[in-house]
């Protein structure tokens, strides 16, 4: 009898507690729901006229108009992997004018702080056949529209931008050199050892101090051991409204740089219509057959104003970077 009594009391307490808990939760929930309802029911009676995206006018209760918090980054922050909007950079190299002055190369080496054994910009001594005339051929990165290097990169360290540039994020590169094997123009160089650059000074000059991750726009500047570098089409110069260093340094006006969308290229002295120039002077691209679609066009070495032999004085078979250690 007493046991029974105890049991029933226990049950009562148990049920009571549970019921109480359920009521509390339910009550809280109902009050929340009612708040929600109240919000939408509480119309102010004032209407605002708004235009939808397809151009029709609609009337909306003013209480429904809430200010949206805008993300600052989205509009203003420049995305280095997207590049400059509505631009498409191209280069034209006039082989008829080149006499291997190598000013382009030394300017490039200087401004990109190249201290290794391999310049980004090279001037090749070319001769297709023993019966044809030799000529000088400067090469930069071709910034291909179908870049083989970008396709094979396993980590997306090298990437293609909408403005045409192919750049390298050397903070991400794993140093597998697959891009170098893929590039038919042998344009990429590797930092086999710790670069002999004075990194602090570079950061100072390029105003990169305090940034722990330098922008990939400074392609390979400063260089990092075990990663790949190459010609970057000087986006830092373009940003300042200047032409790439090789273009301004060339005394013979070999290099033309410009925007394909604007259909203009300039070598600093003259500004030309790109399409007309390529049509009139039979422009071509290197190894068109590989389907890489380079952004660099060449004008054939015809009607040359210069003697090929003049360039031989500057030609160094085994060197493309001045040795800085001598100084």
């Amino acid at each position: 009898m007493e046991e029974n009594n105890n049991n029933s009391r226990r049950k009562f307490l148990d049920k009571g507690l549970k019921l109480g808990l359920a009521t509390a939760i339910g009550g809280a929930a109902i009050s929340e729901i009612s708040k929600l309802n109240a919000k939408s029911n509480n119309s102010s009676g004032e209407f605002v006229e708004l235009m939808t995206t397809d151009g029709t006018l609609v009337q909306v209760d003013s209480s429904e108009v809430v200010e949206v918090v805008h993300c600052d980054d989205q509009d203003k922050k420049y995305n280095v992997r997207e590049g400059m909007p509505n631009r498409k950079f191209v280069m034209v190299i006039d082989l008829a004018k080149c006499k291997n002055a190598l000013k382009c190369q030394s300017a490039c080496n200087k401004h990109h702080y190249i201290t290794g054994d391999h310049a980004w910009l090279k001037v090749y001594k070319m001769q297709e056949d023993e019966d044809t005339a030799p000529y000088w051929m400067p090469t930069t990165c071709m910034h291909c529209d179908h870049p083989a290097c970008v396709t094979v990169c396993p980590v997306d360290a090298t990437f293609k931008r909408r403005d045409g540039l192919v750049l390298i994020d050397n903070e991400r590169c794993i140093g597998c050199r697959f891009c170098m094997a893929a590039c038919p123009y042998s344009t990429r160089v590797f930092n086999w050892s710790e670069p002999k650059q004075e990194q602090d000074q570079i950061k100072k000059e390029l105003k990169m101090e305090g940034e722990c991750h330098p922008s990939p726009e400074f392609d390979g500047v400063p260089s990092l051991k075990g990663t790949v570098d190459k010609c970057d089409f000087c986006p830092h110069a373009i940003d300042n409204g200047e032409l790439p260093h090789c273009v301004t340094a060339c005394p013979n006006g070999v290099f033309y740089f410009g925007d394909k969308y604007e259909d203009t290229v300039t070598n600093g002295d003259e500004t030309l219509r790109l399409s007309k120039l390529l049509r009139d002077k039979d422009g071509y691209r290197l190894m068109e057959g590989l389907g890489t679609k380079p952004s660099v066009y060449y004008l054939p070495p015809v009607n040359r104003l210069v003697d090929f032999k003049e360039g031989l004085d500057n030609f160094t078979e085994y060197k493309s970077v001045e040795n800085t250690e001598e100084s």
Partner: protein
Amino acid sequence: MKNYDKLLNDLAPRKFGKTGVIWTISLVVIIIAGLIAYIDQIIKGQVVTNMSDYALWGVYISNFVFFVATSFVSTVTVAVLRLTKNTWRTPIVRIAEIISVAAIIMAGLTIMIDMGRPDRLMNLFIHGRMQSPIIWDVIIIPTFMAISILLLLYPLLPDFALLKKYFKNTKPKLSKWYGKLAMNYSGTDAQKRIHLNSIQIISILIIPAGFMLQTVDAWLFSTLFRVGWDSTNMGAYFISGAAVAGIGALVAVVYVIRRAYHLEEYITDFHFDKLGKFLALACLLYLYFNINEYLIPEFTSKKEEVTHMNLLVSGEYAPLFWFVIVGGLIIPIIALFFKKGRKPLPMFLIGLLVVVGSWWKRYLIVTPTLLHPFLPIQGVPESWHHYFPSVHEWLITFATLAMCLLIITLLVRYVPVVPIQRTADEQEALESNKNTKS
């Protein structure tokens, strides 16, 4: 009554003799030397190698390709011979599985040696992009490694159970380990059924996995524009070459183990004869793809192809090229045609020749191509026109080869190299056959 006692006495793992100990120690010494060289490479950068912006891949990559090729041995011997019901495979499959596991582990390790930034290895998983052939490799190598390890482990379970009993009194500690590895296998009918099914599934799985591995490896090269790599022949070329490297390695290792463990009773001349025919078949196949690879470019004589071919046939690489073709393929094929050539000792020598030839063959696939790019090599140091591995590269490469041999050695030390249970079952079947006949 099964004569397990004799089998166990013959086949149970034994302590090494003097030669075994010296062998193991020298392997460890080579590995340590390579480790020191590798640490130096990490500190100074890959400037310690003789690679350059032109010869941008060297012996590390060719050595990697060699390991990948050798790991194919389990696919060709274990799986293919199993599916074709070639019963002579029994005493050699375990050794093939061991070589395969050791080679694929080393392939995974050696590819990292070539990375300029091994500290960024995780980027492959964080930023990996499916269109890059390297990511295909990152996927298939661990997959193949897992299947290879399973293929080694599963058939071992009954043997581990036997060894547990065998070592119970003499070496209780070792017996406990074998007990753990046996995973409670006791040979009940249900276990036997599951066991057999699992092995069947794994040995079928390893065929597509092996083919994919070799093909991806070939595509690392044929997806690039370079002359000498830009060939549709590459996939089949690599698969047949892998069969040659794998069986060659198998023959050499089988011979050494047979000598060291006195297994003449189990691995007989008959097995070498069969292996010899198998190796000859693989070599013939590979020779066929070699002819495809070299004769057609020579015939069409495109300027770039001719440059490449001349470099191989009569240029800087000619001695190596002819050694690989004649020594690594033609001489083995001719020798293997004769019954005397398929006796154990000649087979061992042929196996060694084939393995060395296979190793240099990978070197010839990787390096000469890079030395004649589309644009001429100009404006770089004279040394960049050539490539031969530096001391660092040799030390590291030998260390990886030694490490592969060490893995094989350790497995041979603790694992019965000839399947005990299977041999017993087969002997029993043979006995009962005789009984029914008489």
